[in-house]
Each structure stands twice: as C-alpha cells, then as structure tokens.
C-alpha cells in the first residue's frame, strides 16, 4: 500500500511520461491521458487486486479493460511503472517495431494488454464477456473498464449497457471519463449526451459519482464505494468527472489537446509544471 503523497508523486511522473512520449513522436493523445492520470495511478497501485506477472487469462485477479484506447500514453506509463514492462520501453511509443502501438494491442505481446482498443465503443462488451467468464470460473475477482464520455455516442455501448443490467453482471465496474470534451469540441456541441447518470440509472445500473476525478483520495473513496456495491445484482457505473489536460495549465479545460502533441517550448513549460519525482525514463 502506498500513501497519498507517493501516489501523487507517481502521478506527476506519469504526466511527465505522457508529455515526453507524445512530444518525441509529435503524435498521440495527451489531453485525455492527463485527465485520467490520477485514476490510472490509483487503479493499478491501490484498487486492482492483481498479480505482478501477466498472463492473458488473468484467473484469480481483477482485470482492467481500456475502451478509449487513444489514451494509451497514460496506460503505458502506468503499466510500465507498475512493473509490467521496462520503463525504458516508453521511449519506443509509436515508433516502428514497437510493442507500444499508437493504440493498445495484444498483437505485439505487450504485457498488461488483454484486447486491442482504439476503434471506439467495443470495450464494455469485452469487459462483460470477461466478467461472465469470471462467474463461470467461480472467480470472485472484479472486472474494471474505462470509457470516454464522447465514446458513449457509439451505439454498441448501449447494447452492452442493456445486456449487463438485464443479465445481472454485477462483477463489473465501468468508469466513464466525464471530461465533456471530444475531438471536434465539447460533447454538448458535437452530440449532446444528456444526463449520463440518468441514462445509466434508467438502464438499471448502480451509479457512483466521483466529483473530483483528479483527486487521488476522492478516487480511492469513490472506487471503494463502487466496489462495495458489486455483487448486488447490478453492474456498477462510476462517473468520473475529470479535467482534460489536467496538470498542464495551457492544456486544461479544452479539447484542443485531445490529439495534439506539444512542441519543444510547450513541453518545457509542461515539464516545469510537473517536476521530476521518480526519475524520467
């Protein structure tokens, strides 16, 4: 177990990793990655009951599925710093012959990844299948998943949301990153989602809200609450309110950095705002 300060130091280091990874290849998705840095750090270091070594079937441990695969920088940084692969490998992000593809994949055998994602809207279905496999295997561990809010515009999600409630998939905690932004602008201007909370409730899910989705303690408290609500006949949805681009002032509260890398000067500012803690890769 880590204390909050250790988790915050790790988060700062992860932010540096994200910025440096996308800057190096002048591509990738820093905005959503920064917005979910605290969530990933909390998830992999406190929340998941997971093994240190990776095997695909993941029997006897909690599993996590990232549906909005474009926030691969935060996923890779946290996986590497959780020991799944060497942190030096973050140097290869999006380069030819790398295991760290632009979007996560099992295809190159990167430990920690259980399904490819990037084409949006597919992750919840996969998570539900894995949750049903857990039940068949009498494995009491949980399935966690993360989805973008804009991603909910994909219809497959609603097939999955309907299925999970109708079939009492209550070993699943699906978190929605509510940052209100997508590539072309705010979700309200691109295609309004209405009340995501009301929609999940109407579909028969238990909903837990985390108002401060960039606060480690708030995340830990909210996710513990969510975990306590599993096993009660309903899937659990966590609405995680985050700020896109969190931790780098000029990237915050805008969709502008959804899929754009900082230039040299911008990188310098971003790194200055996030001083090295655990050592750069």
């Amino acid at each position, binding site marked *: 177990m880590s204390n909050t300060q250790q988790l915050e130091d790790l988060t700062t280091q992860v932010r540096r990793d994200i910025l440096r990874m996308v800057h190096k290849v002048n591509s990738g998705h820093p905005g959503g990655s920064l917005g979910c840095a605290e969530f990933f750090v909390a998830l992999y270091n406190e929340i998941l009951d997971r093994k240190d070594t990776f095997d*695909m*079937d*993941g*029997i006897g441990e909690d*599993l996590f*599925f990232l549906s909005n695969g474009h926030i691969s920088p935060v996923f890779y940084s946290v996986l590497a710093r959780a020991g799944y692969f060497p942190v030096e490998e973050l140097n290869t992000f999006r380069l030819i012959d790398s295991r760290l593809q632009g979007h996560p*994949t*099992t*295809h190159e055998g990167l430990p920690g990844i*259980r*399904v*490819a*994602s*990037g*084409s949006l*809207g*597919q*992750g*919840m*279905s*996969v*998570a*539900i*299948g*894995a*949750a*049903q*496999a*857990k039940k*068949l*295997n009498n*494995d009491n561990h949980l399935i966690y998943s993360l989805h973008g809010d804009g991603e909910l515009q994909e*219809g*497959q999600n609603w*097939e*999955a949301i*309907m*299925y999970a409630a*109708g*079939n009492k998939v209550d070993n699943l905690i699906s978190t929605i990153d509510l940052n209100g932004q997508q590539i072309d602008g705010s979700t309200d201007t691109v295609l309004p989602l209405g009340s995501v909370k009301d929609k999940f409730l109407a579909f028969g899910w238990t909903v837990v809200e985390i108002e401060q989705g960039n606060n480690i303690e708030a995340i830990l408290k909210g996710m513990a609450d969510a975990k306590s609500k599993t096993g009660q006949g309903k899937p659990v949805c966590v609405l995680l309110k985050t700020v896109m681009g969190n931790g780098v002032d000029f990237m915050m509260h805008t969709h502008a950095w959804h899929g754009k890398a900082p230039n040299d000067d911008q990188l310098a500012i971003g790194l200055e705002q996030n001083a090295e803690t655990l050592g750069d890769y």
Partner: protein
Amino acid sequence: MKTYTNTGNKDTRSGFGAGLTQLGQTNEKVVALCADLIGSLKMDDFKKNHPERFFQVGIAEANMIGMAAGLTIGGKIPFTGTFANFSTGRVYDQIRQSVAYSDKNVKICASHAGLTLGEDGATHQILEDIGLMKMLPGMTVINTCDYNQTKAATIAIADHKGPVYLRFGRPSVPNFTPEDQTFEIGKALQLIEGTDVTIIATGHLVWEALEAAKALHEQGISAEVIDIHTIKPLDDAAILKSVEKTGCVVTAEEHNYMGGLGESVARVLALNHPAPQEFVATQDTFGESGTPAQLMEKYGLNSASIIKAAQKVVGRKK
C-alpha cells in the same frame, strides 16, 4: 467413376446444432452466444443442456462479438450464432479489432449464408461474407457442404486455437459425406478423380459439382471434383496437384466471384501454374426473393452452370 449417395436431405445448420450439442457434452470450455435466433441456428439443445454456458444477447450482434472476445479471457471457447449477414458485415469492425487483431479464440458460426436463404431476399442473402472474412489476418474461413461435414467441422474448430468463421446454410440439401468423418481444417478433399478438368467447389455447390461430373462423364469429359471446405488457409498443394494434371479449372461457390473461393484459387494458379479458369459464382450482384432452387438456377449456381463452365474451360486449353 466414384459416385456418392445422398443419404437423405438435411440442413447444414442442423449439423452445426448437432456438433454444438456434442461439444457441450465433451468440452466444458465451450460456451455459446446467440442474437435472438436460437431456433434458426439449432442451438436449442445446447441452451437446454447447458443454460449456464449459453448467452442470449438479444438483437445486438456487436455486443455479442465483443462479449465473445471477452469470454476467451478466462479460457472459454465461445461459439457465436446468427445469420451470415449479421455475423460478418454488420459487425466487421468488432470482429476486426476485438477478435482478429486481438487474436481471440472465437468461433463465428454463420447460418443462412448466400442465396439459398431464399424468400427473405437480398437484405439477408449475404454473398460477400467469405471475402470479408478471408481478408482478416489470422482468420480461418470454412464453408461446409452438408450436414455431416458441418457437424464434424463444428467439433473440429473447438480444438483449433484462433478465430474461425464457419459458414453454412438454411435449406435441406443432400447429405453425402461420411457420418463418422474427421474434419481436418485446411485439407482439400478429392471426391472424384479425373483428367480433363478440375472442379473446385465449396458449400452447397459441392453436391452440384458431383452431379455435374456425372453428366460430364457421359459426355466424355473426365472431371476431377475437389471439395474445398477450408477457403483459408487454402490447400494450395492439392489445387496445384490437380490442375497440373487437368490443365484447367472451374471454381464453384454460393458467393460473389469477387472475394470468394475463385479468386483465392486464381491467385494460387497465377503464382505457380497459370491455367484457364471459369468462375461459377454470382456476378457482382445482390440476390432477391425466391425459392432456393429458383435462385440457384437464375443466378447460375447449379450443376447445369458447372457443366457449361467445364465445357467452356476445357475448350480454352491450348
């Protein structure tokens, strides 16, 4: 000339159902998913015998494919069941990303393929699915010809690690392959030996090819008939061995000529042994309502079409 006996018409989808029933008893890892077509896919027995391993997903094929991918994580072997159209075109990206690219051990089992779906018409008669599926890296593509072969294939694919597309149909058709056969993925079956022309057929067209070979024999044309149940990986060696002997080939399939078995065979020949080829297939068209027999005649997918194509291709040999 070797002849084959129809032991009684049966639908290939019932072969799938019977195979799945057997797998339910023999392989605990096998689970099944269906998108509101249990009766059509003949999955009733599996559902009844193993309710805990059966997932009714409703009319939600995209979620079904994703769930199947997820079920493999934890060691299950999922078999999905719906019509061929909804098994492929409707969920292409789900198959591409969550199954094929992710190398998940999912068996996509597709009934009502092709024109022989009949009266429901072109919305349901997919003639592009073989092409869609064979283009996906790592996907095995199988199109079975009768009840017995479909049952054997269903059982065999459970032991094959990796994604599989198993295509079969709706109507009752001659059942003529052995009841106790072992299905070998990727292995072409030489059904009739011949010297003048090779007829390579898949699915419902295999029986038509046998009928055509009989008629051709009476006309003095010796036709070799090969049943290609596995379109990918294709048995290149069997095709080449036969065409090197006969010097020409007719391919026959219930599918568009674009993207089907014919083009796969043409590639093998172009690379190794160029030879005249005729394509018995639909000609880049949609289907329509009608009885299976009417449709197969109208769109040129019966023994008469194979006979004509064989006569033509023999004439093209230099």
